[in-house]
């Protein structure tokens, strides 16, 4: 692969339009055939605080966390120190800033990056309604080697809702920026291999939404919460055209019970939330599992515990996704690897819930959910996705919770004559009557577990790349960095296998052990403080004794270079971020 990629950031204070600049550049690069990702980071102000747009542009769709930003455009330096951790710069970086907006922060100077002054405000001032961010967009577009047409179209499309005047001023600024460039010795995209084609521009939250719609979800209930609200909002915009319904519930307790009620009626149903909402849904999860009413729940994880860090990413809800409910309540837990995969994983999750009449929890996160990527269209998979229903019953003989060989019992839907029953969260016998007898309890517990264990999940439970003595195990949005690390290790001559787990529960223990094989070293990588997956995998017997954990809390991403550093330097095992063995 002669793949190349470039990372750049645009920073600015409230109203500076940094994010718009990033958005326009992403779309323009996409139109020209590149792939890309836009993530954003914002300060604590509710609105109008400082923000940074972080862009990855590349000629192949892989968006592992950036280790060095090649280019930083500072529309101003207000509140910039907040983002220092998130924007690694070094002596090979180029920093463009407007001298009018004050002096470059010490910390930026210390990186040794090349500084270039760009009189953005002065240039913008020459245009009525002109804004420096669009001047910056022109300047950077040209610098990178993006076609003028592409960026012009992107600007026009992005701002069209604001009216012709605004578009006009923006385009003039763009031109001004474009013309002003005296090409400095900064990075360009120009020589890259870009193939034009149909591309999608999609966020991870939208990708989950699309997967859900493809799987037939037609009822959604939810309560706003960052960073899941935009997933619900996307569904609100698109459900009704498909004949579906979305209800904004009064709280998450209501949301999950509405979801269960709709599914009891036969409609594939979903709810989405983040940590605090997931905590509130725990009792409902148990009801859906006990009553065998299929639902899907998407958790767009943010920093925890409690209110935590609402706008930033962490993989810290795994334990709750696995264990959230009193009693023995086995469920499906899945995690997408990246935005593209979120379409498939959510689609699959809904289908598994429907087929197994259980709860499927999709663990996404803020980074995955709120980043926007430009990628190839994600084609729809054909997956078995129908609920087993009872269409006819002998009078009085319907057994809602019949003990079948695969543990799945035909579910009758309201409207079906003669198949009436009462769904129940009380323990029951096979005919749905409450029972507290040990043998009924044991039989129903076994049924609810075995239906999950006996299902044939095929190969989709994981993603495996390469093979070797070293196995890097991970899940969710850490996958991109881990894949990249494995690739670099292989290039360095270290035979390495990447093992990404898409299906976390029920865990494919044997398959996992087989995938690890006779590895000499196994490292489990995840972005949380408690090494949640590591302990879970060990507890299930899926890991060899000598396995190590690389777990670090958010919000900073785990980068490929961090992993390489950890793996190559044997000595420094900080007990906080990594634990070897126990």
């Amino acid at each position, binding site marked *: 692969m002669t793949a190349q990629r470039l990372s750049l950031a645009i920073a600015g204070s409230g109203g500076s339009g940094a994010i718009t600049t990033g958005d326009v550049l992403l*779309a323009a690069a*996409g*139109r020209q055939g590149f792939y890309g990702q836009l993530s954003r980071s914002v300060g604590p102000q509710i609105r109008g605080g400082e923000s940074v747009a972080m862009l990855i542009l590349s000629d192949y769709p892989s968006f592992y966390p950036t280790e060095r930003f090649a280019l930083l455009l500072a529309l101003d330096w207000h509140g910039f120190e907040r983002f220092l951790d998130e924007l690694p710069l070094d002596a090979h970086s180029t920093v463009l800033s407007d001298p009018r907006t004050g002096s470059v922060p010490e910390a930026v100077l210390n990186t040794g990056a090349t500084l270039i002054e760009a009189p953005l405000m002065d240039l913008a001032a020459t245009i009525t309604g002109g804004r420096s961010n669009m001047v910056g967009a022109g300047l950077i577009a040209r610098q990178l080697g993006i076609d003028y047409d592409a960026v012009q179209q992107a600007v026009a499309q992005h701002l069209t809702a604001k009216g012709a005047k605004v578009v006009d001023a923006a385009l003039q600024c763009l031109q001004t920026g474009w013309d002003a460039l005296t090409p400095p010795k900064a990075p360009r995209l120009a020589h890259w291999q870009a193939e034009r084609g*149909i*591309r*999608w*521009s999609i966020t991870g939250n*939208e990708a989950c939404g*699309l997967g859900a*719609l*493809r799987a037939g979800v*037609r*009822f959604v*209930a939810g309560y706003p919460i960052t960073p899941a609200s935009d997933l619900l909002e996307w569904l609100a915009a*698109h459900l*009704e*055209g*498909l*004949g579906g319904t979305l*209800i904004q*519930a*009064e*709280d998450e*307790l*209501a*949301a999950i*019970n*509405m*979801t*269960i*009620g*709709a*599914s*009891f*009626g*036969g*409609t594939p*149903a979903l709810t989405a939330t983040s940590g605090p909402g997931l905590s509130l849904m725990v*009792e*409902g999860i*148990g*009801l859906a599992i006990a*009553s065998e009413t299929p639902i899907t729940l998407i958790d767009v994880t943010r920093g925890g515990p409690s209110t935590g860090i609402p706008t930033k990413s962490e993989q810290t809800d795994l334990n709750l996704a696995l264990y959230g409910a009193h009693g023995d309540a086995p469920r499906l837990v899945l995690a997408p690897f990246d935005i593209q995969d979120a379409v498939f994983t959510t689609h699959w999750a809904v289908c598994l819930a429907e087929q197994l009449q259980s709860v499927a929890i999709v663990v996404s996160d803020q980074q995955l959910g709120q980043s926007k990527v430009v990628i190839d*269209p994600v084609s*729809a998979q054909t997956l078995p996705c129908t609920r087993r229903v009872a269409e006819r019953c002998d009078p009085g003989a319907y057994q809602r919770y019949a003990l079948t060989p695969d543990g799945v019992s035909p579910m009758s839907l*309201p*409207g*079906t*004559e*003669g*198949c*009436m*029953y*009462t*769904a*129940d*969260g*009380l323990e029951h016998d096979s005919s749905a*009557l*409450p029972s507290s007898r040990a043998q009924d309890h044991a039989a129903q517990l076994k049924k609810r577990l075995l239906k999950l264990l006996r299902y044939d999940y095929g190969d989709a439970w994981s993603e495996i790349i390469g093979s070797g003595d070293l196995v890097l195990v991970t899940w969710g949005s850490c996958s991109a960095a881990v894949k990249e690390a494995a690739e670099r290790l292989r290039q360095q001559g270290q035979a390495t296998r990447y093992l990404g787990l898409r299906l976390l529960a029920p865990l494919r223990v044997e398959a996992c052990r087989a995938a690890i094989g006779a590895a000499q070293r196994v490292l489990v990588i995840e972005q949380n403080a408690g090494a949640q997956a590591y302990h879970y995998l060990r507890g299930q017997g899926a890991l060899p004794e000598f396995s190590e954990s690389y777990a670090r809390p958010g919000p900073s991403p785990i980068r490929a270079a961090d992993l390489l550093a950890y793996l190559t330097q044997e000595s420094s095992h900080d007990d906080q971020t990594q634990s070897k063995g126990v």
Partner: protein
Amino acid sequence: MMTKPRAKAYKSGIKPVWCPGCGHYGVLAAITKALAWLALPPQEVALLSGIGCSSRIPAYVNAYGFHGIHGRALPLATGLKAARPELTVLVAGGDGDGYSIGGNHFLHACRRNLDLTYIVMDNRVYGMTKGQASPTTRPDWPSKLTPHGTGINPFQPLAIALAAGAGFIARGYSGDPNQLAQLIVEGIGFPGFAFIEVLSPCRTFRPDQLQWKHQVHPQHEAPAEAAQEAALRLFADDGLTTGIIYRHPEGRHPPPAQAQSSLARIEAELQL
């Protein structure tokens, strides 16, 4: 000409767990009478509940049922009704279930005004957990958990429902299953959220409620049609008046018309 079905056809035949003499038997009788009166096909009816003695009722009715979790019957029903608007959806539960742990959903179901009929079997006590005070218990009633009584004023379900925007508000008595059946028939007929509070004695923990049979009295006026008038009545009410207290003349607003789309169109929107 079809003959009307009998109430018995709407009983599932399962023996209730209730104590002998429990008021909830009367509610069961009234619900089955109402369904028979309306001659609804059992499979087109769903009865959803929470947890409590009262909430056991779905299993005793010959219809689809869901015995959910404590306090969450209304959201369960909301989801079902929104997804399957053609079904007749009834919701039942107790005063603890509906007014204590479920109070928030009660408020918002009244506002949301879906076409549900909500029957609360109010015995002013937690029967199932053996006799603690509920929101409707009078302040000086001692229980093991509140030995001096709760000391706080009882919850006024009808006034709350009115303030929360319910369009149909009635009170029945389980000792008069015929009148109650009539209220349920009217509630099902009302095009929006219908709330029916039922005085339903707990023989075991509130034997004093056996007096209700001497105390309940029907409302003499026609149902109020204006919220202000209903408020006047309710703020002066002794809590034992039966009948339809308030019925909004219009009921529920129809949902807005929906635009047509398709997955292909949605995917096209994602194109750059």
